């Protein structure tokens, strides 16, 4: 049985083909913003699903905030917990930001993504690896990334945590922390800057979207 996710714009036209072209849909969930036309589109999908006997939910997101929208979608997908093989995400509808957020979530969570071709109206699968992208990081790197994300706001300005904080907090050795932080900085998800109050210290912060690698709200 398949669960279908989708992004919605002002009409459901780009989402309905995904419902039509499958015979095993169990549930559907659409993401849309608070524009009245999008809300009405969501209601139309609700009526369509009711006729088919498909469970339906809609989630309002900020269709102009990429990381916020992706975070909300990711949380919904993880909450429902379906197996990736039983889930399809139609990323066609809505703003470009909404579609981009959906693609991000598909890549991060290893979901099958489809879009409806503008000219043919047919559903086309996107060439994604169905592997959770965040699993590229090792468990140790994720721990360090999570620590920095959780502690960067502590203490006085400017924000950031230090390698010493990580060593103490995670009880890891200096070379180990240095290695993992180095990898995360090289990957571009952690930024390192000198402490303006103490040039000897380097402050570590995560880029906002890196929280998606941890499955946490931005």
């Amino acid at each position: 049985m398949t669960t279908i996710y989708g992004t919605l714009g002002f009409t459901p036209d780009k989402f309905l083909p995904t419902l039509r072209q499958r015979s095993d849909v169990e549930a559907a969930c659409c993401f849309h913003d608070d524009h009245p036309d999008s809300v009405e589109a969501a209601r139309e999908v609700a009526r369509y699903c009711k006729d088919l006997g498909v469970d339906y939910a809609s989630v309002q997101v900020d269709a102009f905030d990429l990381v916020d929208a992706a975070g909300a979608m990711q949380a919904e997908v993880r909450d429902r917990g379906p197996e990736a093989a039983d889930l399809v995400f139609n990323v066609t509808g809505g703003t470009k930001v909404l579609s981009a957020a959906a693609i991000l979530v598909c890549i991060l969570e290893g979901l099958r993504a489809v879009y409806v071709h503008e000219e043919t109206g047919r559903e086309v699968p996107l060439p994604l690896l169905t592997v959770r992208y965040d699993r590229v990081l090792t468990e140790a790197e994720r721990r360090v990334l999570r620590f920095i994300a959780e502690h960067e706001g502590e203490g006085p300005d400017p924000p950031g945590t230090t390698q010493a904080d990580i060593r103490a907090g995670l009880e890891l050795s200096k070379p180990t922390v240095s290695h993992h932080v180095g990898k995360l900085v090289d990957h571009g998800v952690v930024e390192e800057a000198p402490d303006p109050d103490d040039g000897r210290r380097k402050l570590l912060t995560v880029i906002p979207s890196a929280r998606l690698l941890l499955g946490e709200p931005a």
Partner: protein
Amino acid sequence: MDEGEEREESGTGEDATVRILVSLLTDDLDDLHRARRTVAYDRLVLVAHPAAREAAKRVVELERGDDVVRVVEVGGRDARDDLAAMREVLAGHRAAGDEVTLNAAGGTPATVTAAILLAFETGVRTLFVQEGRTERLPVLEGVRVEDRVSTEGRTLLAALHPEQPRSLDDVAAQLGWSRPAVERTCRGLERKGLVALRIVEGRAAVEPTGVGRWLRAHGAGGADPASS
């Protein structure tokens, strides 16, 4: 003028890395101007769909010539076609040792989709530059899609025909592997979305998917400009 002479001419020195900003383009130039303000670049590559041709010409004039600006035209309607075009652009710049930043905002929805797919496929530094904010996408820079496939997986992908299914027995014979080993590797690749397993004329067969074909051509036993 060869590349070395071009760099000296620009004052960056023979060994200086050329910074490339690849940005999607619509007919509204505000998006592009934001990206140009946000990212330092030596050269600009505009990915433009047909409706953005005039906008592209204006940018070439603004930058005073096509030494700085290159326009790559894409259809803007099919993400897979746009992705193929953008892969070629990126591969060329990486082969040249250039430092590339991609702005995935702007363009049509299909092109935006293609840009984000490209970002995660290739591990290129990618921004999403919008009015009021710039997001850096959570792309693990330097991590490419082929890095997430085992050596065995890449070897098997290289043994497949790009367009037609091959029987598992034929693949096993060619690689000198046992049939169970081929099946196991195929199932792993199938779970990743890289191959599809089918029955052809009563025999179990395997063929690459779209991303599997790309990986086969660029990263699995073939020449990979991105890795140079």
